[in-house]
């Protein structure tokens, strides 16, 4: 017993001494904890992009002479490990703020800890609306949490906005079926779809929710096809490859349009053996798409340094380091309450658009403001092994194209 | 009031009646021996007393209380102790703790060892002769001491009735004596003791009365000597008058190096010695019978020859040692067993079972061999398409022998071919063996507890008793020289 413990203690102590330096007064570095899922495709970009931002800031002399220092933790997609990492980050490594996770489960587990330990936390990728709802419910306690990515509700509205242009106006579509995995994050998403799709003129024929463990999608597609909608509006993240492949092999004649997180991965084409051809999906970034002047330089730098393209959470994590740095500068102190106020005042043009947090009066306080002039997102399509941006029109770098089996507008 | 009374006990398993209308009683201070060959139903009676089996009808009374249908733990607490043949002590606990366990009340709240219990356990250990090894773990003890632990556990609760299952199996002669004394002491303590064993001889000096069973029914009851001389018992164990057809050993050509030689073979199961310095030999073309009661070591001997279990000593085939040769190679080489458990492929048809024996035969040979076997066992031809599991016991036995013969063995080992068979079926198998012996020059090694069946065929006979060969000779001299040790 002694033996293994001494070993563990020793190894971890080494790791700690390498990372933690004593807290000094004014020129002490600004420390940001980064808790992420390093083995997952989406998560691995988070610490990398954050490091890139920190290096850039430090290369320019830091913030008021203070360097940014990152402390990284891998949570292995586990809430328990994330909580442990958060505790260590605050109590042990004395970080000033934490960038945490793309998984809603993990962020929701950390939210109360941000409140208890009074430390600013921002997520680069979680989608659950509950995160911001919790802040609205108990602002004083939960004000330390910021939602640096789109909530499900926002995602629904962005999908509707693009569907209006791309489906309703372009192809005169009138009906849709919502197809979502049965998960917490899709509840507000579906609610959003059911509300906004009729508003843009798409009648929702049915809402099909399926178990995230589903492997056989045949019954689901058959059921949907029986309803003869013009388009399938998707809300999938846990699954992605399987429904896409079966959509192709069954030759479902209806286009898939909406949220499909796995489709944003650059490996998606290979994973599906090209079945991805024609899949339409919402994203905050796309290859070669200059959403803002900062987008492409970031992608290039990232590509150069790490040899692959960043995931969506990479963009936001990169921006968040800058946002925290600016907030520290505005707050003029490390006091967490002041830092919260300074964060709330954020108005920053990042890699995915202009970022502003919703005010205290909003039911999604500390969520991102969306819409024209802020974040609009993109709409991409897989075409011949490449992700092509189709929307908004001013950022489009291709034309919409469907595989032969999809009968657009004719499925009546 | 008798300590143990059985009345009209009947137990049926499906269509099989394992015990029919059995009645006996044992008083405090009395030892009753319950004997019978394998399959006679004595274990069923024992299990019914213990509550492991629920009797189909009849009554079991302990100290006058009707317990038929009770769960075992209630019967035990009423006053029944059991000395199991196979001891399974707790391996991480000491001898003393193992005995103390038997003294522990059946309560969920007994969390601390009770000093009084420990003292009592010590006292019991002393009585059974374990005081020297109280703090040792069972794994380090000799076999006899493990049996002593079982004995101590059985008497720990001061039961009125003690059942003892095959008390002397695996014990040396000296240990047997010591054990007999311990059992006699139980009688002295006023307990009713029921010893369950195969034959009378082992308990002749110990038991006050003996109750003999055969195929589920009572065949005799009385003082040991009377039961040993009982006509029916003698017929069951020894058979009637014998005609033998033995050939002298000098008639076989391989006198110098017999086909099969077993020399000084020892086999241990855990610490129990199952074979002790066993030597025998079989000549090419000879028919040798090894007779002995169940548990004497016949099956162990055959398994050692077939290479299925590790042994010390030497087993040679035509002068070459079989040590290190795999069981399959031994069988493929021509020493083939028709095992006691039959080991048939029960879901396969008779034809398929026979085919499994013909794996190494050419197609022509196979047909030829089949015809020969059908001639030997005509019943099998009728049953060719039936699955082996649905055959009667006798047919299964024929199939077992036929399957072994199908491989064209040099030596066939027949282990207890008559076990559990009706006399008429035995007769059929006996006839087949007779023909086999007369029409072929096959070598046979037969293991039997049924002397009547074995002797008429044998050229030579070995008697195996308590792991040792105790007699060797021609069948004609068996009854007068060895018969007495047998019942």
């Amino acid at each position, binding site marked *: 017993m002694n033996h293994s413990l001494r070993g563990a203690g020793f190894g971890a102590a080494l790791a700690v001494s390498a990372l933690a330096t004593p807290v000094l007064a004014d020129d002490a570095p600004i420390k940001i904890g980064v808790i992420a899922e390093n083995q997952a495709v989406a998560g691995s970009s988070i610490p990398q992009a954050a490091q890139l931002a920190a290096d850039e800031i430090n290369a320019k002399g830091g913030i008021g002479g203070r360097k940014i220092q990152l402390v990284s933790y891998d949570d292995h*997609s586990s809430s*328990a490990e994330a*909580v442990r990492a958060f505790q260590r980050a605050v109590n042990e490594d004395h970080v000033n703020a934490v960038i945490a996770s793309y998984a809603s489960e993990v962020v*929701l587990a950390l939210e*109360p800890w941000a409140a208890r330990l009074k430390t600013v936390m921002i997520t680069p990728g979680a989608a659950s609306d509950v995160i911001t709802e919790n802040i609205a419910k108990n602002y004083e306690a939960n004000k330390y949490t910021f939602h640096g990515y789109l909530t499900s509700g926002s995602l629904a509205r962005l999908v509707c906005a693009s569907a209006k242009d791309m489906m309703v106006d372009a192809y005169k579509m009138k009906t849709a079926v919502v197809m979502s995995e049965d998960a917490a994050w899709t509840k507000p998403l579906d609610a959003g779809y059911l509300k906004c799709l009729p508003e843009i003129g798409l009648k929702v024929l049915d809402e099909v929710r399926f178990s995230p463990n589903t492997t056989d999608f045949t019954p689901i597609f058959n059921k949907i096809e029986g309803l003869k909608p013009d388009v399938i509006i998707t809300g999938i993240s846990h699954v992605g490859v399987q429904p896409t492949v079966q959509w192709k092999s069954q030759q479902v004649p209806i286009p898939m349009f909406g949220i499909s997180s796995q489709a944003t991965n650059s490996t998606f084409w290979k994973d599906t053996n090209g079945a991805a051809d024609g899949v339409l999906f919402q994203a905050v970034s796309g290859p070669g798409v200059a959403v803002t002047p900062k987008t492409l330089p970031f992608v290039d730098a990232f590509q150069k340094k790490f040899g692959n393209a960043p995931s969506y959470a990479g963009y936001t994590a990169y921006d968040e380091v800058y946002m925290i740095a600016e907030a520290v500068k505005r707050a003029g102190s490390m006091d967490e309450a002041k830092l919260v106020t300074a964060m709330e005042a954020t108005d920053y043009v990042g890699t995915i658009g202009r970022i502003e947090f919703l005010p205290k009066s909003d039911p999604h306080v500390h969520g991102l403001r969306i819409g024209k002039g802020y974040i609009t997102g993109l709409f991409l399509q897989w075409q011949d092994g490449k992700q092509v941006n189709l929307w908004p029109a001013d950022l489009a770098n291709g034309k919409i194209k469907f595989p032969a089996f999809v009968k657009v507008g004719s499925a009546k | 009031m008798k300590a143990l009374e059985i009345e009209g006990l009947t137990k049926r398993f499906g269509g099989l009646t394992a015990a029919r209308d059995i009645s006996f009683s044992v008083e405090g201070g009395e030892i009753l021996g319950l004997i019978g060959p394998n399959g006679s139903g004595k274990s069923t009676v024992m299990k019914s007393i213990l509550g492991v089996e629920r009797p189909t009808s009849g009554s079991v009374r302990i100290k006058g209380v009707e317990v038929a249908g009770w769960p075992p733990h209630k019967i035990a607490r009423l006053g029944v102790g059991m000395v199991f043949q196979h001891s399974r002590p*707790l391996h991480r606990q000491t001898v003393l703790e193992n005995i103390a366990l038997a003294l522990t009340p*059946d309560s969920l709240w007994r969390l601390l060892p009770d000093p009084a219990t420990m003292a009592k356990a010590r006292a019991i250990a002393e009585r059974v002769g374990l005081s020297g090894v109280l703090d040792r773990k069972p794994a380090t003890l000799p076999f006899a001491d493990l049996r002593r632990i079982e004995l101590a556990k059985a008497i720990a609760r001061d039961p009125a009735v003690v059942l003892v299952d095959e008390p002397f199996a695996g014990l040396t002669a000296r240990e047997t004596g010591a054990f007999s004394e311990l059992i006699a002491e139980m009688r002295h303590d006023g307990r009713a003791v029921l010893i369950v064993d195969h034959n009378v001889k082992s308990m002749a000096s110990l038991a006050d009365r003996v109750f003999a069973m055969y195929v589920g029914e009572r065949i005799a009851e009385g003082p040991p000597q009377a039961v040993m001389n009982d006509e029916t018992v003698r017929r069951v164990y020894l058979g009637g008058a014998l005609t033998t057809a033995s050939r002298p050993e000098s008639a076989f050509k391989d006198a110098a190096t017999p086909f099969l030689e077993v020399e000084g073979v020892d086999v241990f199961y855990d610490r129990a010695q199952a074979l002790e310095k066993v030597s025998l030999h079989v000549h090419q073309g000879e028919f040798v019978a090894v007779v002995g009661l169940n548990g004497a070591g016949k099956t162990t001997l055959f398994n050692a020859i077939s290479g299925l279990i590790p042994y010390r000593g030497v087993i040679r085939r035509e002068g070459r040692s079989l040590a290190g040769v795999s069981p399959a190679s031994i069988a493929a080489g021509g020493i083939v067993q028709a095992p006691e458990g039959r080991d048939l492929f029960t879901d396969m048809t008779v034809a398929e079972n026979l085919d499994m024996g013909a794996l190494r035969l050419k197609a022509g040979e196979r047909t030829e061999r089949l015809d020969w076997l059908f001639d030997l066992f005509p019943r099998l031809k009728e049953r060719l398409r039936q699955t082996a599991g649905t055959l009667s016991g006798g047919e299964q036995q024929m199939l077992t022998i036929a399957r072994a013969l199908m491989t064209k063995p040099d030596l066939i080992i027949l282990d207890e071919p008559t076990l559990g068979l009706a006399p008429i079926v035995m007769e059929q198998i006996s006839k087949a063996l007779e023909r086999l012996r007369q029409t072929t020059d096959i070598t046979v090694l037969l293991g039997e507890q049924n002397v009547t069946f074995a002797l008429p065929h044998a050229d030579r006979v070995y008697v195996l008793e308590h792991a040792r060969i105790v007699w060797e000779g021609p069948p004609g001299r068996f009854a007068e020289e060895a018969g007495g040790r047998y019942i």
Partner: protein
Amino acid sequence: MARAFGPLLIALVVAFCLAFLPLWVSGYILGLLTTAYYFGVFSMAWDLLFGFANEVNFGPTFLIGLGAYTAGILDSLYQPPIAVCVAAGALAAVLGGVVLALPALRVRGPYFGLTTLVAVLILQNFIVVFADLTGGEIGLTVPDVISVSDKVNYWIALGFMSFSGLVLYGLSRSPVGLILQASGQDAVQAGALGFNVVKHKLASFIVSAFFSGLAGALMVFYLGVASVGTFVDIAVGVQVIVGAVLGGRRTILGGALGAIFLIGAGELLRPLGDLSNFIVSAVALVVVLVFPGGLMGLLGGSREAA
């Protein structure tokens, strides 16, 4: 008797020393050990069933999850004192233990194993289906925690593990434990000694469930969250079982040792990234293949290997 309590004495001395760990190691290590201690209790409770009652329970997380979620749901709905929630969690697990014991007394071996596995899958499905109550697959955040101090949490976990170890080990070595062991080893012989096998097996399920549920509930109020991934997933159950087998089955204390080793080794190997799980599994496999007595067997020499 003295020897029987030797390992316990050593363990208690080790636990006493561990109590001073917060004075000189980082909060991160403390957090790590806090989780490891709770897993230690899971493994020890599992070993009581496996090593003594001889019941292979593939679904330890059924009991753990019941305890964790009952406590968490109660807290999020009504916010009674934490002690009440934890007690309710333990009680729910005990009820679950009785439910699990029913098939155990009927079916054996792989069949019982599968029944326990299915119990976990059903629990998991119900958690997702009743997401409004349970938070579904993203977990249930509870409003209260026992403490925000890693030291306090560490001491609570250490104290709880020591207490559980003391009780479970004491129980396993007590007369009742011996009866249970005899019942697991050979029900017929135990019955012939006058022991009610059913009663004792049921009791062992209740005790094992009690500690599993209690540990699960306490862990909820340490983490502040109950989620499928932490408490119910089959992978968690696998870790509990591997911990117990690795530590040395039939030793109770080995469960704690194995669980701490697994979590500690996983952490030590973290620099290897994704390969760490692979290597931990490989090490555990080698131990199972080469040292079937487990870590306790290694520490205690071959004496205990029998």
